[in-house]
């Protein structure tokens, strides 16, 4: 293991920041030996700096925190609530959760989010696929099997969050995507040849021209540190794999990043930096935004993606909208989007087209 940079040359038994307390961990990001209290301080302070330096929020805004009950969103809710108080951001914070209707998976994590609502004092709104679309994921899988279920879930979730955010009348959505996620997405976009997504995936704010802008306050926060923080602070979270998600080749990329982190922790941030620095012509034309004729959601086609998929389900043509078929919109669907959504599954499927 490379240990010639920073790190623990001096094996003194004190926290290297306060020099008083016994260290409890070696910070994954910087390899500093640090005690719990100082860890909390630097962790929270770094996120505060990210929020301020990138102007993520404005005073008075209503912000929905995408809450899955998992570690990232739980810690995000906790930290944002804390920073909002401490630094007077003046934000109106909400928890927004999506119920896909996957038995055994979502029930438990929704319970966790409900507990978070109480623990952090943040109002919770749950939007369910059943309410929005008339189908649960369990029902969809029963209908179409395990082949393209992630496509459905991905498209539906994206809309569900936007619709939920609209119902709550929020100005922005904050998600718990962390540095590891973003690094992984950079690599995946290179592996898949998606130069358009590659140019957007490191942006800390996305979708400013869409219904609800989204931001990622954890862009530079290491996943390991989120877990450490949650552990020491005894934050309540739930973790499991989506029972329907296959372990796609995203697994290879994740493994690679973890191996990298072991020999050079800053590699994760370096990948993000590369993603930001790639010379990509910014002239990729954004499609014209109209509205879906069926449901009124924002769409560049006659029907939005979700409506196309739903039409297929309701008509018993589950392949409608998947792959290069001539769909309702009368033109070839780009299967790149499907592949993108499908392969961007790992965690609680929140890692979507951002």
């Amino acid at each position: 293991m490379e240990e010639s940079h920073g790190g623990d040359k001096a094996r003194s038994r004190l926290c290297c920041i306060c020099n008083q307390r016994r260290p409890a961990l070696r910070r994954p990001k910087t390899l500093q030996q640090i005690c719990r209290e100082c860890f909390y301080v630097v962790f929270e302070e770094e996120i505060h700096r990210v929020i301020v330096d990138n102007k993520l929020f404005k005073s008075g805004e209503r912000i929905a925190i995408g809450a899955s009950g998992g570690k990232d969103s739980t810690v995000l809710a906790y930290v944002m609530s804390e920073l909002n108080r401490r630094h007077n951001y003046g934000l109106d914070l909400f928890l927004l959760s999506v119920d896909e209707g996957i038995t055994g998976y979502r029930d438990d994590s929704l319970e966790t989010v409900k507990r978070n609502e109480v623990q952090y004092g943040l109002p919770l709104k749950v939007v369910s696929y059943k309410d929005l679309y008339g189908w649960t994921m369990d029902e969809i899988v029963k209908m179409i099997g395990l082949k393209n279920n992630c496509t459905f879930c991905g498209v539906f979730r994206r809309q569900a969050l936007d619709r939920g955010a609209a119902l709550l009348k929020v100005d922005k959505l904050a998600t718990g995507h962390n540095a590891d996620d973003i690094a992984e997405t950079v690599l995946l976009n290179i592996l898949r040849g998606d130069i358009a997504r590659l140019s957007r995936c490191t942006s800390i704010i996305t979708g400013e021209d869409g219904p609800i802008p989204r931001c990622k306050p954890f862009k530079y926060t290491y996943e390991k540190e989120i877990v450490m923080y949650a552990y020491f602070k005894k934050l309540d979270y739930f973790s499991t794999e989506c029972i329907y998600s296959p372990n796609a080749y995203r697994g290879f990329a994740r493994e690679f990043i973890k191996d990298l982190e072991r020999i050079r922790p800053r590699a994760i941030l370096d990948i993000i930096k590369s993603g930001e620095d790639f010379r990509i012509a910014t002239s990729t034309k954004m499609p014209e935004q109209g509205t879906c004729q069926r449901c009124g959601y924002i769409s560049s086609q006659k029907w939005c993606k979700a409506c196309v998929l739903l039409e297929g389900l309701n008509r018993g043509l589950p392949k409608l909208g998947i792959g290069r078929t001539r769909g309702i919109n009368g033109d070839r669907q780009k299967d790149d989007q499907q592949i993108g959504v499908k392969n961007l599954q790992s965690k609680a499927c929140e890692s979507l087209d951002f």
Partner: protein
Amino acid sequence: MARDVIRVRVATKTDSGDQEEQLSTEKKLPADANGDDNHRRHRMMCLKCKAIEATVFTGGDGGGRFCADCFRSNLYGKFKLAVTSNAMISPTDKVLVAFSGGPSSRVALQFVSEMQLKAQKNYDATANRDRSLPVFGVGVAFIDESEIHPVTSAVLDKAVEDIKQIVFNLPQPTKELHVAPINHNYATKTNDGEQMLKNLMNSVGDATGKEDLLAHLRMLSLQKIATENGYTKLVLGSCTSRIACHVLAATVKGQGYSLAADIQYADARWEVPVVLPLRDCQLQELNVLCSLDSLKIVEIFNEPCGGINGLVSSFVKVLQEENPSRECTIVRTAGKLTPFPFNRIPEGNVDDADLVSQRRQKKFNLKPIESLPPESFCPLCNSPMNCYSNPEPRPQLFRAACCPSCQYQILPDEPSSMDQFYSLLPESIIARAKNGNQKWIREKIQDFLLSDGEDEA
């Protein structure tokens, strides 16, 4: 360079039975001697000529099936297309081919020699007509890295002998072979270059940094051989597979800005422009050709990489097993990055250069501002640096002149160690730090330079 596992197997026609091992998932049809075997033959025919049975199965793009001749001509075709459409080699050029002993550079050597031979034949055929276009010259360079990767003198001597044989047996005309040690860069200093090099390498703590520094020094050696012997182009055998690894490695090291510079067909930021004619060929194809044509390879100095480079190699290997086209996709993605102004061959036929650059400008939708040259280059790795990496135009300290990646993985942390490191650097690197990339500065002010005949400033 380490040899990858050969993923393509070549049928041995001399064997009695059908010894075709295939990577494709086609079911092997039973040998039907009597009945209509048109269907079977159709399945197994060479995709290109459709006349001969296929014996080479490449799992890559399109799942190719070729007979030996078509496979060879297909591969040479890729090489030739790269050379001509990027104006890599012009008749007045003297081309130096870097030969490491491995399969990629072996094929580069072979193809360049064949191209030269063809040009020579054309030249001879026009004996009584206009002979204005000469034939380009070819030389070969081998860098002896035994100071860094110790080998017994017996091993080294045999390798050099083998290389001499290979070069001697290339198609006519005879090519000059230059063998230089990796401490070549220190030749002008009075101190013992070998010791300085060893001390320099020892002062780099990071395993990846060491490997990368060695690669930078290797390039410097090649450049030195080229300039000292009047070569005008440097050919590297970098293939798709190698470039794919470089794309990921550079991404991981935070070199996303400069990546576009390293992976184009041409790179003119060096004194002697570097060209990559095998950019579109996969390592497996090159291995197959070496096997098919019995092109001799010399395995030396090819220890597997450690650190980041090693991890990336393993990762790409795993990806290739899952999908044999992955390398191509990676390089294709990186190919969509906007290249730098120096990623084209500046001299040669004016029309060609214009055409090439016009095509590029159109393809990449370059605005004039993006065509502006970067302000500075890292003295160690020669990477272009954007203004955000290096706000100081004329940094006082060597450290500040280097790119963030080299600062992290190559330069020592302590200021005192830094002084010592600086004292061990070859003169050419120090000059780059002080004076900038001379080649590029000259290019920029080209139009304003008075020619020799006029008054000099």
